């Protein structure tokens, strides 16, 4: 499936901002099942300098600064991405989850070393006993890892309610667990915490999800949103991505942008400004499947 993606973020300030510095992670990754054919970053006002590179996790990151007074900032990313069908990992027999835990501890291949860092959270995380209890129910001794993750995904989907009003970007996982409601990033963080508490490696994935309009309705331009889900290290099956918000393995509707330990590692736009007073923020995301033109 091919997509044209446009992601626009617009800040409007009540007072002039003389200087701003930003780090953005908006470029879709190139993966075995995903090719990014084209990526373009449009910034207004024109940045004084722009530097693009890859970060520790292999995500493309751009640093730019604007050093003239401005009343607003618009960042638009345009990408052309092709997502190929992902081989169904259910055809592969996966090892018991305890074996994967041991592999993460003792393995020294570049793959397991890379995976090992995702057993540990970013400095903000710490052990939560209640979560471990919750997670264990999906991982009886000897259970195949894939079956365990699938069951955990299902339970989060079933037990937790989608509620866009319940949380903010800073709501702690404990609170999400307590109140049993939240949005995709809350479920993602929750599932990651569960898996890490068992000694498994889990990544936070940021990306987009194509929205399919109800039958007979036109696709709404700009109504898509960025999305988040979980990627789990499954031993010989490698990394397998689960979307707890939709209780599914990822499909060709999921477009991957960045991997990290948590939201902070993949945050699409970070910025530090001087002045600016109050600021307003508008975001629009448009994920357009290529194909017969829309009529």
């Amino acid at each position: 499936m091919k997509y044209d993606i446009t992601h626009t973020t617009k800040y409007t300030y009540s007072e002039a901002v003389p200087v701003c510095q930003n780090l953005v992670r908006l470029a879709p990754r190139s993966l075995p099942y995903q090719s990014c054919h084209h990526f373009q970053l449009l910034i207004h006002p024109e940045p004084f300098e722009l530097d693009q590179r890859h970060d520790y996790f292999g995500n493309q990151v751009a640093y730019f600064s604007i050093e003239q007074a401005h009343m607003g900032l618009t960042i638009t990313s345009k990408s052309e991405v092709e997502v190929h069908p992902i081989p169904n990992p259910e055809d592969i027999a996966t090892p018991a989850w305890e074996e994967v835990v041991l592999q993460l501890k003792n393995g020294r291949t570049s793959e397991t070393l890379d995976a090992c860092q995702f057993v540990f959270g970013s400095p903000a995380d710490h052990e939560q006993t209640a979560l471990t209890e919750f997670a264990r129910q999906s991982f009886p001794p000897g259970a195949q890892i894939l079956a365990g993750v699938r069951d955990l995904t299902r339970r989060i989907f079933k037990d937790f309610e989608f509620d866009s009003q319940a949380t903010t970007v800073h709501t702690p996982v404990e609170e999400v667990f307590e109140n049993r409601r939240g949005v995709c990033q809350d479920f993602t963080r929750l599932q990651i915490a569960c898996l890490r508490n068992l000694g498994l490696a889990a990544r936070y994935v940021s990306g987009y999800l194509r929205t399919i309009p109800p039958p007979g309705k036109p696709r709404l331009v700009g109504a898509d949103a960025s999305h988040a889900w979980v990627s789990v290290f499954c031993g010989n099956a490698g990394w397998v991505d689960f979307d707890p918000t939709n209780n599914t393995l990822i499909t060709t509707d999921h477009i991957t942008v960045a991997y990290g330990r948590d939201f902070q590692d993949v945050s699409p736009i970070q910025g530090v400004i001087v002045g600016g007073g109050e600021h307003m923020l508008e975001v629009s995301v448009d994920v357009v499947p290529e194909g017969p033109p829309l009529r």
Partner: protein
Amino acid sequence: MSTAQPPATDFFNSYAPQRGAFDELFQDETNVRPHGQPFVNRVNILGRDEFSRRWEMAQHTIQENGIAYSGYATPQDKPRPWALDPFPVLIPASEWYTVSDALKQRARVMNLVLRDLYGPQTLLTNDVLPPELVFAHPGFRRSYHRQIVPYNCFLHLFSTDLLRANDGHWWVVGDRTESPSGMGYALENRIVISRMFPDVFHQCRVERLATFFLQVQETLRSLSPQQRENPHIVLLSRGPTATNYFEDLYLARYLGYTLVESGDLAVRNRKVMVKTLGGLVPVDVILRRRNSDECDPLGINPASHEGVSGLTEAVRAGNVAIANALGSGLVESSALMAYMPRLCQVLLGEDLQMPNARTWWCGDAQSREFVLNNLDGLVAQPAFRRRGQDDATFESIRSMSMDELRKEILANPHEYAAREKMSRSTVPVWQDGLGRSNVALRAFGVGTNDQYLVMNGALARVSSGPESLEVSRRLGEQSKDTWILSDQPVKHVSLLDEPERPIPLRRSGDDLPSRVADNLFWLGRLLDRAESTAKLVRATARLLVSEADVSSLVELPMLIRCLASQGQIEPGYALPEMRDQLPPVEDVLPHVAFDSSSEGSLRAVLNELCRLGSIVRDRLTRDTWRIIYRIDERFRPFERGTTNLSDILTLTDNLLIEVTAFSGIITESMTRTQSHRFLEMGRRIERSLQILDLLKHSLIPLPERPGPVFRTILEISDSLMTYRSRYLANFRLGPVLDLMLTDETNPRSLAFQFLKLQEHVDYLPREKTQPGFSTEQRLSMSLLHTIRLMDVEEIAERHRLANDGNTLLALVEDFELRVPRLFEAISLFYLVHARPAHQLAEIAPN
């Protein structure tokens, strides 16, 4: 010179080394170690009396220098004077060189570990270090990886904590690689002790510390990205509220670097700049005294609102060098100590020259087993250092029962390490007599890659029980100087003997950080406020202790109005009908003067003066600081008995002498740089406001018998002598107003203040291309013109005849409005462009 030589054991003969423990001075119960003999002999010649006298003097110096661990966080928070012990720890040079070599080797290993972990990470792929040791480490921030550092060197300054075990061998018990503290204190200790024992010091052939600090300068200079001859090096401090601020000040001054806080720096075009009065000035090298993860809110830690946004980008671009490199604290963990012997083998192909205390990291299953089974004989520690939380973490570990600790280790094994319990050697200490304490040494090193140098000296810490030395620092500890005793004559080295380098002549001072200018400006204001407040209090006290009948004194109500208007006493005293309900002023005054909780009180003014003084200490001479210290120390109520009005008289008299000394230093010894200018502008603005306040409360309305009032205000404004020499005892309004308002030759007149302000404002840095005058220039000129155009005779006449006060009042109130406007204009243009930065809102996916 004493000729009679007392017996050699005289001074120390009551000292008893601990049986079984290693004593640094005595080799057994009665015999001094050979290397300590010269010292003991010299001290014996001094004798107890001379020793006590010198020690008293030294303690005085320490107090005055205010070597303190914490700054004046709040005026109530007095810095703790550094408890220093007079006897240095003595170590023979031959022994110390072995220690130094071992520490250099250690530093090379640490540097290579950093280089690898922030680069190819072969230590992980080759199974030398368990990956969890890195990935579970909160200090392993991904943005430190693959940064660009000069010479691929991450570690420039380090310190190592050492102990000597009973067998006489030195052991490493801790490393500091983030931004090691203590070398400034080692230096200050040396200065105090060598001054106390100049004769002893020279005869004992003590190795100098200056060699080390020269190397610090040389190392930092070599890091300059453009290899400039005179790179701009700044010391990035955490600021006055941080524990090590005074050491920052001390080092910045000794090494000759600009002291900056993160608010003084900005990144533009991926270069680091200091925000100064004259604009942005590029920085080449940063001596970092802040923790890495508080250094860049954009690139390192969005949760921290401090730091210099974009700093990591400047590092990445190779435009600035930081010592130590960002993230250098990764290797100062106790978890890593468990792997040091192996790392040394793998990285250098050598055995570790000096062992570190045996350490087990609980993240490793076998080690964890061992620790859990032997918890009694081990010291449990946090595996990774989280700077600033050390003491709390140690405390929480110490407060846990064995069972709790076991549980905690099982729940979070990666977070814990344990090392074997070890004894520490002992040394004699002096606390009104001889005593014995355990000693810990902190050694320091500096350099790059293969070339490190270890200080020939150390910071020694002593404590009566070995336990409290386990924690990096605790209250109530003492410290000692450490003498490395050479068996050859010692070469004199000084930071002043620099190799010849061409230095362009400079006279500017536009590179004063805006924040510092702001503080100096307020220091100037507070200095003058202290003076006028003290004079008011003194004048009132003098009147109240005089023989005259208090009710008949016409100047008393005037003084009380002034005191009330400044908030020194309750406002009720200004109103005659309320005054009767309040306790008599003579009873209240001695108390309110010392009441630091009331904002306008003399003591509160002095507190603020001292706080500001401590903040800008790096811009003041030592003598100036000493005066501030004295002001703070001496103006206090007596500890015994009550402080009465005549005591207030004495104390304010003394205070005014100190304040005058302060002013004298400013006039006579401060270079006319922007620092001086801002301090002066502060004083002039404050004095203008004080003159106006005094006039308003004394002459409006004009009292019936104005003579005593005239005399009092002239006295308060230091103009009485001049008046008498001109007009004898004839007090008339016209001449009084002339002296206080329009006489430009009187440094206490308003016109003089305006004249000086205009001069200073003219010299402020500004764009040469800007046409016309700036706002602050226009405001200061208009003040000066207004006062020059005033006809005091006419004003006095009208004021005397009509006595409705309108003309004079309108004048005073006009000035009272315009002076602050000038202050605001200066502040807006020069001082507040250091506005804080903040984070943009983030958008979470939904």
